[in-house]
């Protein structure tokens, strides 16, 4: 059974408590759910079973998957540091298909358009379902109810939590690495396919039963830095190409040229300046979208003008963040993933450009994490409702569109700002109710649009500080009305009552369900 036993959770959403045959807990409120007991542990291994010369190299990925015991119903994990340039995930399932293996669970840290290749395997039962992000063709496939199992979407931190809770037991982790040695030490900073870091694969290396490192740059022991430690690794495979680093850069990682978006970015920076959110030694996190990147530029201008420095940027690093680091406008980049090759270079060369992982930054079962220490967090969203609840995964027509990424985790920063246009191609962004609720409104502080700024009434301090700042402050209802006056009030999309996926909150509870879309022409 895909799902069962629906209940209404703490944000009023109907969610299943049985998903893919396993029990899950409905969302109870921020910081309410705290599991007890001990974390999940991987199987005990003994070094006596591994070659003393440290050489774990096998001839092919197929060989490694067979030796790792690939069989029906297993959970296979991969990471997304190559973003749309990933070459390995598709090969794993080509091999599984060739071997006639069925019912696999794919557990990527994110999926990209290149993974549309996997649709035939979802159709023929090689893959049962995906737990990770589902975008583009995969999102459409899942949204139309064609996936055999239920999709589960988690944040980067939530993925770490799910592994530590034993909610997801990884049978085989395959880690594509730009550089590795025969023992399995690996990193992302060196090699012709350098992608920066391998932080999203860290938990997989520590908790999976079998770990396979795949590389196209096999160096003699030791591969330094060992972002992934060979002591966790079972097998190493050498391939011709492990990934396409030029495809790390996707459309969302270039600075915007749109005058409308630049206006939003500039207004966001002005807001931060007027409210004192920017100050000497402040810290911020900006996402990968074109608007967020331009905001970084405007922040740079403000820092320069005041002779201030940012203490650190939580990134997603790219050329623009690196320039600020090199100019001395920021002291550290604490980096979760590199978005371009300047980010990769800087991480390799600059000791102040630090690679991190979801463990240090976002992990719910850590003794604290970095996310809550960040002063200003700038994020995108597909929809926000009049209660500031936000959606980042689905389009207003119901289709899954984006993964959660680190989005939910970073909301724990001191002030979260969503710079968003009031409407996109006629579709208003501020709704009475979000299609999919990915974060409760109490986590979102400010909406900045091209037609005005709305501050969450919970942030009276910010409302007070903007009173005489000459900024276009409006209520969120006013912004919604303004968009609807221009675009017309949209109809509700036709969604069936069948659930195709669920959204997890950072603590592992289920915050919302994604409903099957009724396709055009279907009645």
């Amino acid at each position, binding site marked *: 059974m895909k799902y069962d036993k629906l209940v209404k959770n703490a944000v009023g959403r109907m969610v299943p408590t049985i998903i893919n045959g396993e029990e899950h807990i409905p969302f109870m409120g921020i910081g309410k759910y705290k599991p007890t007991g001990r974390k999940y542990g991987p199987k005990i291994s003994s070094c006596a079973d591994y070659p003393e010369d440290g050489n774990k190299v096998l001839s092919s990925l197929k060989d490694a998957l067979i030796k790792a015991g690939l069989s029906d119903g297993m959970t296979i994990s991969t990471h997304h540091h190559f973003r749309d340039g990933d070459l390995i995930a598709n090969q794993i399932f080509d091999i599984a298909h060739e071997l006639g293996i069925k019912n696999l669970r794919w557990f990527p840290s994110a999926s990209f358009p290149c993974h549309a290749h996997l649709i035939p395997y979802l159709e023929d039962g090689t893959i049962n379902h995906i737990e990770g992000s589902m975008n583009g063709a995969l999102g459409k496939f899942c949204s139309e109810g064609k996936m055999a199992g239920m999709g589960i979407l988690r944040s980067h931190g939530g993925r770490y939590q799910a592994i530590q809770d034993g909610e997801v037991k990884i049978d085989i982790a395959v880690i594509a690495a730009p550089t590795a040695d025969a023992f399995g030490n690996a990193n992302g900073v060196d090699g012709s396919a350098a992608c920066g870091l391998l932080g999203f694969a860290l938990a997989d290396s520590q908790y999976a039963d079998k770990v396979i490192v795949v590389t196209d740059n096999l160096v003699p022991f030791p591969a330094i830095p060992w972002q992934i430690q060979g002591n966790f690794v079972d097998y190493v495979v050498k391939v011709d190409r492990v990934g396409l680093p030029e495809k790390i850069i996707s459309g969302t990682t270039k600075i915007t040229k749109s005058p409308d978006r630049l206006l939003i970015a500039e207004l966001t920076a002005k807001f931060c300046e007027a409210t004192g959110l920017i100050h000497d030694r402040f810290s911020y996190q900006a996402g990968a979208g074109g608007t967020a990147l331009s905001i970084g530029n405007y922040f740079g201008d403000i820092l320069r003008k005041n002779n201030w420095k940012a203490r650190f940027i939580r990134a997603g690093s790219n050329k623009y963040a690196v320039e600020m680091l090199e100019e001395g406008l920021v002291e550290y980049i604490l980096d979760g993933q590199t978005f371009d090759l300047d980010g990769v270079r800087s991480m390799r060369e600059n000791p102040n450009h630090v690679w991190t992982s979801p463990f240090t930054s976002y992990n719910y079962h850590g003794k604290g994490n970095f996310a809550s220490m960040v002063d200003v967090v700038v994020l995108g969203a597909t929809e926000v409702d009049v209660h500031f609840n936000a959606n980042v995964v689905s389009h*207003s027509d119901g289709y899954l569109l984006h993964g959660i990424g680190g989005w939910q985790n970073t909301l724990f920063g001191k002030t979260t700002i969503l710079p968003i246009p009031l409407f996109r191609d*006629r579709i208003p962004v501020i709704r009475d109710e979000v299609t999919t609720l990915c974060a409760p409104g109490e986590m979102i502080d400010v909406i900045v649009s091209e037609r005005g700024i709305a501050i969450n009434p919970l942030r009276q301090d910010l409302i007070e500080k903007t009173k005489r700042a000459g900024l276009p402050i409006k209520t969120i209802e006013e912004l919604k009305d303004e968009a609807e006056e221009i675009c017309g009030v949209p109809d509700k999309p*036709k969604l069936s009552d069948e659930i195709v996926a669920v959204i997890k909150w950072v603590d592992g509870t289920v915050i919302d369900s994604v409903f099957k879309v009724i396709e055009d022409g279907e009645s």
Partner: protein
Amino acid sequence: MKSIGFAGNRGDGIKSDCYVEVEITTSGGHDIELQSRVKALYGKQITQLTERVLAHFGIEHAHLKIEDTGALDFVLAARLEAAIRMTMAVDKEFLLPQLKENTTASQKDQFRFSRLYLPGNSPKLMINAGIHQANGLILDLEDAVAPAKKVESRFLVRNALRNLHFYGAERMVRINQGEAGLEDLEYVVPHHVNLILIPKCESADDIKKVDEKIQALRQNFNIVNPVWLMPIVESAKGVMNAYEIAQASQNVVSMAIGLEDYTADLGVSRTNEGGESFFARSMVVNASRAVGIQPIDSVFSDVSDMEALAQNVKRSKALGFDGMGCIHPRQIRVIHENYAPEAAEIEKAKKIYIAFKNAEAKGLGVVSLGSKMIDPPVVKRAVTTIQLAINTGKLSENWITDPRQKIKGER
């Protein structure tokens, strides 16, 4: 008349628009084939509006194909009407309720620092244009519209004048040259256009024809608000006749120069420094000042080079121009900032203004600052400078109540 009518844009990069094909049939009612990326949310509304438009034109049977990329109602209505009117000869118009704020009048001498050109057949560029706060938005029916799109763009521009939010910008339309331009007026004058730009003017007669047609239309449609004129001089002949053009009608409020065509007419290249057009620009400034209207400079075409634009604006201001056209929203701020008065000018103007207010309060006829007497034209210029400074964000609107602004001796 054709049996199939069509209008609108489709293809790569097209957004907020739709392509419509209408075929009048003899049976089967309305058969609407709708492709839209917003179908789930607006499909019903698109179909309903389409039905209303068909009913308005009395069409009982038709086959329609609509390829929509998020067109707002006024865009869809314009496309439908344009397509339908290819298939039948009617004068009937389909109009959506007029936005109330689009009925305001503009003043003869209001600021015209910046005016943003918007291609008259590209809805995508219109929708957010107003938020960038140009003093005026020009819906361009002339050079920015391809010859094959001239007719359909009139419906779109007409609907935009009625239903697009201008956010306080003056509503301007650039018409075509000659007869086509006079016809353009029928689509815009009854719909509260504030100002008409007349391209390629070479004589007073060019202005008079347009003005006469406008006055006739105003009378027919009971339009109370003025419709101002901004002739554009774009040729050697036009430059030589600048003075007669400037005084051709009382409704001429400013005169612009178009340097792309002018330099082509001279057979020279246009440079950033502008030496080749110094004479022409001075002629336009002089003619305008002689008649008491605003001289307006040509657009600066390199939209990526803000530094060169700033230099250009500074030269333009020094020559005596009051404003400049823009072809990209990012140019607006640079233009405002550089036409705006500089800090020293503002400080001086503030002192004069306060002295004037003090004198007024005390009932004194003569304004003095320190030991100097201040003449009325100097006061007038100070008032203008302060207004400019406020408009361009260089001075707070309530500067006078700010205690730091008070000058010595004032209680």
